């Protein structure tokens, strides 16, 4: 009967769909080939090509790149000046991730546990709306907000806290002459910009937490604080880890915020930008690109060892 039906409709598309139905592996292959090609050739290929260029030689005198292989660029990463850049970026990435997690958790918890329907939609939009605006515009806006005589300073003055602000700004490693040229200001802008990337994964992990687990915990005699530390927090660690991978790697690679806000001094991202754009030292830029990759690999290994993914 089916054969008869096929003969009546010798439609090419239908025959194709029949073949694909009978050969699910072929179907899968067809579906996966374009993304695999993209990921493999375009993405991984260009990344490996870039890293390969880190072994090329840059001639300081002629400013020319020659394909003579050398380890000099990678060795140069350990110069005191370059190490300083790496440690400064790493410190900022850790601080930004920690602060984002602390700020994001209550918001994510409220979204996951206490909102539904329209309120939940409102929170999603509120969290993601900042991402709809151009990142550079937002960063420039922050330079104005934090500048001398800007909104932030006015606000601090209204609260009569100028003394405190001056005190904070005088702390070495944190402060600077004004908020917009301080490490603190840079840190605030980073936290602002990456916060949604922390909120959403934590929210997703809390959303998956069955309410009966919280009931069971209370039923077994755990006070709310114990339920939080013993059940909620451990089960949301994969979400925090996922969010921190975003905030950590985005901070490691960023080159705009460090240029516009905060004291002078390169970050890894701005160093890559300077080496590649201004100086034309592609091999050194490529060597610097390796740093965030290695740091994130170490970070992932650490997080995994701490058991962050056990509850997945």
């Amino acid at each position: 009967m089916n054969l008869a039906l096929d003969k009546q409709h010798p439609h090419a598309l239908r025959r194709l769909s029949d073949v694909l139905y009978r050969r699910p592996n072929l179907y899968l292959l067809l579906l996966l080939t374009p993304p695999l090609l993209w990921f493999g050739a375009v993405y991984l290929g260009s990344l490996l090509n870039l890293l390969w260029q880190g072994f090329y030689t840059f001639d300081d005198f002629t400013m020319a790149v020659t394909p003579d292989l050398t380890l000099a660029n990678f060795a140069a990463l350990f110069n005191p000046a370059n190490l300083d850049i790496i440690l400064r970026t790493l410190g900022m990435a850790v601080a930004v991730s920690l602060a984002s997690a602390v700020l994001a958790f209550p918001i994510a918890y409220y979204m996951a546990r206490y909102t539904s329907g329209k309120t939940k939609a409102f929170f999603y939009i509120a969290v993601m709306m900042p991402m709809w605006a151009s990142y550079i515009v937002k960063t420039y806006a922050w330079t104005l907000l934090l500048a001398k005589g800007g909104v932030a300073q006015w606000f601090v003055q209204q609260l009569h806290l100028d003394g405190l602000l001056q005190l904070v700004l005088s702390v070495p490693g944190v402060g600077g002459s004004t908020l917009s040229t301080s490490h603190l200001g840079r840190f605030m802008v980073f936290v602002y910009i990456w916060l949604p990337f922390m909120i959403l994964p934590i929210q997703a992990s809390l959303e998956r937490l069955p309410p009966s687990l919280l009931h069971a915990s209370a039923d077994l005699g755990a006070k709310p604080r114990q339920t939080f530390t013993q059940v909620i927090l451990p089960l949301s660690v994969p979400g925090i880890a996922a969010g921190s991978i975003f905030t950590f790697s985005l901070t490691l690679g960023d080159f705009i915020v460090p240029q516009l806000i905060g004291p002078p001094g390169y970050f890894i991202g701005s160093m890559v930008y300077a080496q590649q754009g201004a100086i034309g030292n592609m091999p050194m830029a490529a060597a610097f690109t390796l740093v965030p990759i290695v740091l994130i690999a170490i970070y992932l290994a650490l997080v995994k060892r701490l058991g962050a993914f056990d509850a997945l």
Partner: protein
Amino acid sequence: MPLAVQFTQVSRTFAEVKAVDQVSIDIEDGEFFSMLGPSGSGKTTCLRLIAGFEQPSSGSIRIHGIEAAGVPPYQRDVNTVFQDYALFPHMNVRDNVAYGLKVKGVGKQQRHARADEALAMVALEGYGQRKPAQLSGGQRQRVALARALVNRPRVLLLDEPLGALDLKLREQMQGELKKLQRQLGITFIFVTHDQTEALSMSDRVAVFNHGRIEQVDSPRNLYMKPATTFVAEFVGTSNVLRGALAEQLNGSPTPFSIRPEHIRLDELSAASHEVQVSGLLHDIQYQGSATRYEVQLDNGQLLAVSQANDQWQQHPQIWQTGQRVQVRWPREAMTALKETVLVEGQ
């Protein structure tokens, strides 16, 4: 001795819906008490009220004589076995069982010893290091049971704990739960929609319908002397006869119930002193230990009749569908019922 749990005129309203409506129950200490009813009948809400996950809108709940209103779940001497077991996925079995002791500050060595003891009680020795995800449904259920019992509660609440198990395992667990309850002597409050389960395990059963209690009685009385039309139809199979037919057969329009196994199937001509009525044999289902017949009465109502196949010889099939037959039953086998009326707005 104060009652284990006492509900006095308890109501719980969600928005407009009365999930629990003016319920009063007295549950004795050491009793195996079941709350039976269809889904949405308020039985689970009652359990949650005892556990403390819900607060009553009105009325009073006393647990061992102490008013429970406003007491959070973690301060109640009551533990729950959840329907989905609610085992903590990030802890191994032993830590799951020891959790209640840990949060109460019992030292590591002692709580591990007691957890292992509780695991032995549910026949899961040696499973302490496994994660809940590595266990079967029946094993998870036992872990949930051990986790609740390790705290030595005076009242154990069980929220349809056997619902997710297959039939064989369920029957086995029914026996084990009953044994455990007798052995420990603590009050079990068991919520189920399965009437066989409720009848076979409980000392007493409360039948819920639309947030109200229809009847609280021993399993035997519930089956033999149902109080309302709802109980008669929900607990076991029953024929409920009403109106003109009831008047014709019983001399009163009050609805009454008659169990299928109390009815005899007979030839049309047969005469007896029993209540009798004729009808058309509509369907015959052979069920092994019994044969089930459906007889359509002249007013259209179908009457279920069950005849035990308690003779070892094979009898020839004497009844044919489409045949007119007579059914009869002893007058005493009829139970007068109160018609279950749905309250306005439900």
